[in-house]
């Protein structure tokens, strides 16, 4: 007879494998539609676009962000840049003064009274262009990103927003390398969700919207400090089409310490859970398609899986330590070093073992496809090892705390 924890483990692994297979089948269905362009593309027309850059104490990164926007391969008279200083207390405002001479840059200063969403809304209220985007002040765009994104709008009138491919900028330590593998994998997942019409986040770095989205659905909301997830869910609720452009590269600076990463992820996961609660009417409701039947349940399941596996791992570790303690208590500490002999007999051949192996094979396959989408060549980077560490050892902490915070409704701060 299987015990209760084994049954739960089988169920979780089955559903997790189901999700992985779903992504891979979606890839096989649509692989020919994934294009990776080199260099510039030409459009029949270049619609007017405003990019809003909210910033708060970004004196060290804002120059690079604005420079990348100025370098965009897009007609300058069609591109307006709004820089909204959200009440910075450092030298950001003074740094921004040098851009006053640029005809297509407008600088605004507002009091810091609401967080990032309020700063973006400040810009939104003043934008008149056909398309509107946002770029976080810790991110930089690739020269061709905007044109490539615009091809999706040009090709399909029903496309209301396009998300870019976010790549980690110059990772310098293990933590950032782990995040690079994670972000790369995210490009694959986001593209597949795009094919399914089930994208649930339009990230702050350079998601581009038709202005009518905000005109019809209203501006960003506070949304538990994850306004980028809420706007995507609101759009899905109203059946607005969201696409993903995997060759519109946006480079972002990721947290370089565990503390910063913990804070960021706590906000993301808490925001996801709270927004999922706010939009619970979408879940398993066939009217809303894959966003409710697949994306949100899959996200909830992945949180549950990581927390469950971590608790199991801690329990097993505790159990082993206890047995070792009993052994030492019974026969004393044996300090003699014995060379362990290898015998394949003692390698587990339980079904659970093979299921776990199959799951990881599917995962690795997906990560290789991610590299293929981004770099044009399927390969397995060593970052995957760091990513495994990040997702199995560190992630359970913020996931568990985020679940707890959601249950007790303890909100998390933006900064």
């Amino acid at each position, binding site marked *: 007879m299987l015990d209760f924890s084994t049954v739960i483990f089988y169920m979780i692994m089955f559903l997790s494998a189901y999700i992985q297979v779903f992504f891979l089948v979606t890839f096989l269905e649509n692989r020919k539609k994934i294009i990776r362009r080199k260099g510039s593309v030409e459009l029949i027309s270049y619609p007017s676009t405003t990019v809003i850059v909210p910033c708060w104490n970004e004196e060290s990164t804002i120059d690079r962000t604005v420079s990348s926007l100025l370098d965009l391969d897009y007609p300058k008279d069609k591109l307006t840049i709004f820089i909204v200083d959200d009440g910075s207390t450092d030298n950001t405002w003074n740094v921004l003064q040098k851009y006053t001479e640029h005809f297509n840059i407008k600088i605004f200063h507002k009091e810091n009274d609401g967080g990032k969403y309020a700063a973006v809304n400040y810009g939104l209220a003043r934008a008149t262009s056909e398309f509107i985007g946002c770029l976080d002040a810790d991110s930089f765009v690739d020269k061709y990103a905007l044109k490539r994104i615009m091809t999706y709008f040009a090709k399909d009138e029903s496309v209301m927003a396009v998300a870019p491919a976010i790549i980690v900028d110059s990772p310098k330590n293990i933590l950032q390398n782990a995040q690079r593998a994670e972000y790369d994998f995210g490009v694959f997942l986001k593209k597949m969700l795009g094919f399914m*019409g089930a994208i649930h986040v339009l990230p702050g770095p350079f998601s581009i919207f038709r202005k009518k989205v905000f005109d019809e659905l209203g501006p960003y909301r506070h949304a538990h400090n994850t306004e980028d997830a809420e706007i995507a869910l609101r759009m*899905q609720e109203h059946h607005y089409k969201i696409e993903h452009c995997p060759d519109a590269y946006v480079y972002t600076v990721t947290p370089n310490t565990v503390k910063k990463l913990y804070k960021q992820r706590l906000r993301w996961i808490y925001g996801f859970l709270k927004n999922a609660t706010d939009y619970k009417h979408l879940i398993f409701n066939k009217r809303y398609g894959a966003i409710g039947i697949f994306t949100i349940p899959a996200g909830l399941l992945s949180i549950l899986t990581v927390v469950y596996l971590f608790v199991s791992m801690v329990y097993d570790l505790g159990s082993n330590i206890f047995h070792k303690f009993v052994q030492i208590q019974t*026969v004393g500490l*044996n300090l003699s070093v014995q060379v362990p002999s290898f015998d394949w*007999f003692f390698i587990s*051949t339980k*079904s659970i073992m*093979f299921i776990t192996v199959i799951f990881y094979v599917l995962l690795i396959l997906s990560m290789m496809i991610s590299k293929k989408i981004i770099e044009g060549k399927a390969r397995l980077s060593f970052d995957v090892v760091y990513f495994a560490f990040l997702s199995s050892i560190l992630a359970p902490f913020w996931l568990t705390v985020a679940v707890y915070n959601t249950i007790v409704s303890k909100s998390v701060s933006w900064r």
Partner: protein
Amino acid sequence: MNNNNQTDWKKYVIVLFITVGLFLLAGYLSNYFNNKKMDQLRSIQDKISVDLLSSETQFSLLQEQSCKDINNTILSQELSSLADKIAYSENNIGSSDDVIALKKYYSLLEIKDYLLMQKISERCGMKSVFVLYFYSSKDKCDNCVKQGYVLDALRKKYPDFRVYSFDYHLDLSAVKTLISIYKVPSDLPALVINKQVYSGLKSIEDIEKVLPALQNIGKDSKNSKTD
């Protein structure tokens, strides 16, 4: 507007079938490798059976031979390794009929080896350095786990020390007879040393005290190393 909101149920079903297929594949692979392990156990037991028969034959010839020609260390190690593998199979493959049958066969081999060792000890005047150990796999027995640690430690300390372990609740008439001969109580763990039954957890020192011959084999093995 988004046309993708029409749910493609066919795809959900196809993915379900693929996932079920992958799980069936995992089950098949598990079964295949478990059977390989069972085959390996059977082959080890067959080899031990032949070795045991050889020892018995060798013993019958003893009347005309010297006692020192009896080789009794190899079998002990093989039995110990087999015990580890059967215990592992019981915990990881489950108490399937195959595992139980192998466990019964193993217990019979142990009894045969034990009887042979008893005869050798008596005829050659060797002091016995073996114990019968009864444990429970049916009920939760924390002291059985601890007794296992003690016996393992003794085996490491005295490589020639022989432990014949028996599952008290194994449905095998030979084991039941052994229990009845030595009047082994159900209060486990229990040890039989020099035909004397000791119930409850016994420490390394307790066993060394009631089995002084252990000290000799300890010295012998040290001497043979320095030789």
